[in-house]
Structure formats: structure tokens, C-alpha cells
């Protein structure tokens, strides 16, 4: 039990939720799926602001992009017919590796991005697909890339309301290494390319749990442009990621171990992408 919690709010609007947070930022917390808040065991938390009451749990197609409410659970998202069809089961397969079935029924898409967790598979996949966020903060509503959200100052506590996705011809794959089937990632890698006449027109390579925030490896992406999509390509991607890997060590894995893992996962993701194209 979070024993110091003495107030539980169910705001009806985004503006009300944000205002409640501003009233007592030091002692308030947004609750989405609850899988992170419930495990915090923090005596600091006195007020819970439950975002489920905002009913931001729908998936719709608007002006050519898919708009996902931030409190949509990971399991509802991955099984949604529109998401499955539009992304050729990229999210369906990748998110099957996120936690257990129970956790995926609780954890939400927005709640997985909001705390800026280094190991989040959801964040890596959203970066891999070039997704954007709609946030509500001090300047009202603002649209930004997931990478820009990660760059916001730590003290800012904007509220993520929606995630916007658009495939735009990208072919994507995700790989993860963890100690057990539903543990958090030791390293995760997402890879997307747009093919053109059997060559890579443009690429996105994202590595998470480095252990810092998931980040794009732009030097790898640049070097992949114009590579022929053949049997050799995945091994080249592996070497490129090995050479360009940036990350660190923690109690889960050393820098050197992560560097090897990331390069192998990138090769596997490149093989998957190659199979999907050829």
C-alpha cells in the first residue's frame, strides 16, 4: 500500500488533470496503467491523479495517421486490427515481448513512454516507427517527436494525451535480449528501412536499454543508405552498430556486453527486414 496517499482524483478533462498536478507537483503522481506507480513504494506520493477517467483509450484513423489514446493498454494496442494491418504485425510481435500478458493488460502506451525509462521496449518501437506524441503542458497542447520528449527537462511533467503513428512505407523489425521471457530488456534494438529498387533508401536504427534512453544511431543510419538488400546486408549492419554503439554499464550488463548484444540484435532485425522485403 502507498500509505501516505490521502487523495485519489478522477479528473474529467486533460486540463483538469494537469491543473491538479500543478497544484502539488512534489506530492502528486499521474496514474495510467499503474504498473510503475504501484511499485514505487514512495512515501512522497500523497495524491494520485488517475488518467483512466479521461477515456483516452481509443484508436482511430485521422487525416492519414493513426491516433492512439495514451491510456490504451499495450495488449489492446498490439491486438488492434488497424495496428496489425497497417504495421504488418510489427507491434503485434514486438509487444508480445513486453512483460507478461497480465502486465500488458495493465500497462498503457502513454504510461510506458511518460517516465522516460531507458529499458522501455515501447519507447524503442515508437522511435523506430518515427511516432509523435501529443502532450499537454505549460504551453497547452504541443506535438513532438518521441526523441524530443526525451530531451525535455526532467522537472517538466507534461501529460501525454495521444500517440500518432504513420507507416509511410517503412518496413520495421524489433529484437530484444532479456534474462527471462518477460524481464526488462538488457538491450533492445529496432530497425526500419524504406526500400527502393532493392536498396535502402533511408534507415532508422534505435537502441534502448543502453542503459540510457533509447536513441537513434544516426551514423549507422547514414552508412546504411544505398546498401543493397541482400544476404550480406545484415552482417554489414551488425558491424556498423558494433562500431558506433554508445551506451554504458550497470548491474545488468557491461558496456562491452551490450555492444556485442546490440550488434547481434541489429543483424537479426536486418535479417527479418530483408525477409519481409525479398
Amino acid at each position: 500500500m502507498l500509505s501516505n496517499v490521502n487523495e485519489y482524483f478522477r479528473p474529467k478533462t486533460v486540463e483538469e488533470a494537469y491543473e491538479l498536478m500543478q497544484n502539488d507537483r512534489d506530492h502528486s503522481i499521474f496514474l495510467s496503467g499503474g504498473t510503475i506507480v504501484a511499485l514505487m513504494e514512495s512515501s512522497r506520493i500523497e495524491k494520485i491523479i488517475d488518467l483512466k477517467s479521461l477515456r483516452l483509450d481509443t484508436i482511430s484513423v485521422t487525416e492519414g495517421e493513426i491516433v492512439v489514446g495514451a491510456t490504451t493498454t499495450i495488449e489492446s494496442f498490439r491486438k488492434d486490427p488497424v495496428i496489425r494491418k497497417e504495421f504488418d504485425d510489427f507491434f503485434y510481435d514486438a509487444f508480445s515481448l513486453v512483460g507478461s500478458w497480465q502486465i500488458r493488460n495493465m500497462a498503457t502506451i502513454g504510461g510506458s513512454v511518460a517516465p522516460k525509462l531507458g529499458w522501455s521496449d515501447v519507447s524503442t518501437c515508437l522511435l523506430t516507427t518515427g511516432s509523435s506524441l501529443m502532450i499537454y503542458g505549460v504551453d497547452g497542447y504541443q506535438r513532438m517527436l518521441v526523441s524530443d520528449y526525451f530531451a525535455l527537462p526532467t522537472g517538466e511533467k507534461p501529460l501525454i494525451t495521444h500517440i500518432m503513428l504513420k507507416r509511410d512505407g517503412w518496413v520495421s523489425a524489433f529484437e530484444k535480449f532479456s534474462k527471462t521471457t518477460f524481464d526488462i530488456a538488457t538491450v533492445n534494438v529496432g530497425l526500419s528501412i524504406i526500400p527502393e529498387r532493392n536498396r535502402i533508401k533511408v534507415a532508422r536504427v534505435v537502441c534502448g536499454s543502453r542503459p540510457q534512453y533509447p536513441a537513434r544511431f544516426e551514423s549507422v543510419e547514414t552508412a546504411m543508405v544505398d546498401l543493397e538488400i541482400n544476404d550480406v546486408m545484415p552482417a554489414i549492419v551488425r558491424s556498423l552498430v558494433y562500431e558506433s554503439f554508445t551506451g554504458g554499464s550497470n548491474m545488468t550488463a557491461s558496456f562491452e556486453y551490450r555492444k556485442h548484444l546490440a550488434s547481434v540484435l541489429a543483424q537479426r532485425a536486418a535479417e527479418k527486414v530483408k525477409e519481409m522485403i525479398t
Partner: protein
Amino acid sequence: MKITLNVNGKLHDIDIDPGEYLLDVLRRIGYKSVRRSCNSASCGTCTVLLNGKPILSCSTFAASVDGQSIETVEGMSDGEKLHPIQEAILEEGGAQCGYCIPGLIMTGEALLRENIDPSDEEIKLALNGNICRCTGYEPQNRAIKKAAQVMRGELDE
């Protein structure tokens, strides 16, 4: 604060602390099949169904499920007659110490409601959040498969 829970079809009006977890509330009102083990969303022992979907009651705030439907293993049997999953768990040796079994049965029930003919792989995937330190999982996987056959009418109870 006051909440209302529909547990196994029975309505409960309950006074709770705003920071209290569903696991503690369910046990307090008598649903002792819901058990604490890891208390860190890692083992699946505390699994209950929330609106038909398996969730972890150890990390769900009771206030967040006000007015919603909860199912526990107490609601599975019909008097003396066990549910096919419970029966199959017994027959296949899927329970030894038994501590994890209520959670596992609820996950199995959710799976079979969604997919009455799951493959071995689908059963393994569904149950991978329910840790058992006794059985090695194979008897439990067999039990879910067998229960599915019974529920499809292909095998006598």
C-alpha cells in the same frame, strides 16, 4: 473512500484507503484465493480477471477499478463441481504446493475464453507470467490443453 466491486457477480460496497491495492482489498473481504507472493508484478500468483482480462492485483490500486467486474477462482466451481481447468490441473499433476494455482487458473480461463483451441505455443505464451516453482510447467500446459478439449466437447469431463 468508498468503492463498489463486482466480485464473481456479487456486489461489494467497501471502504478503502486511497493507496490500497486490489489484492489486499479482495483478501480483506474474504477472497483468500488471491495470494501475495512477489508483490512486485513479477510472478502472477495474484492474478485475477478484471472485466475478463488477467491483471495483477498486487499492483492494481483498488480505487482504479471502482465499479468494475473482478473474477477470482472462488467463482470458478459450481458447488462441488470443479471447473474443467481445475479438474484438469488435478488430473495432470499441475499442482504440487498449490500456491500459484489460483492465479494460473484465472490466466488459463482468460486464454480459453479468447481461444478455445490454443496451440502449445499459445498456452506457453499466455502462462509465461505465472511462475511455478514446483511443476516445471509441462503438467499445467497439458492441463490447459485438456480443459480446452473438455470445454469444446471433445473429451468427457
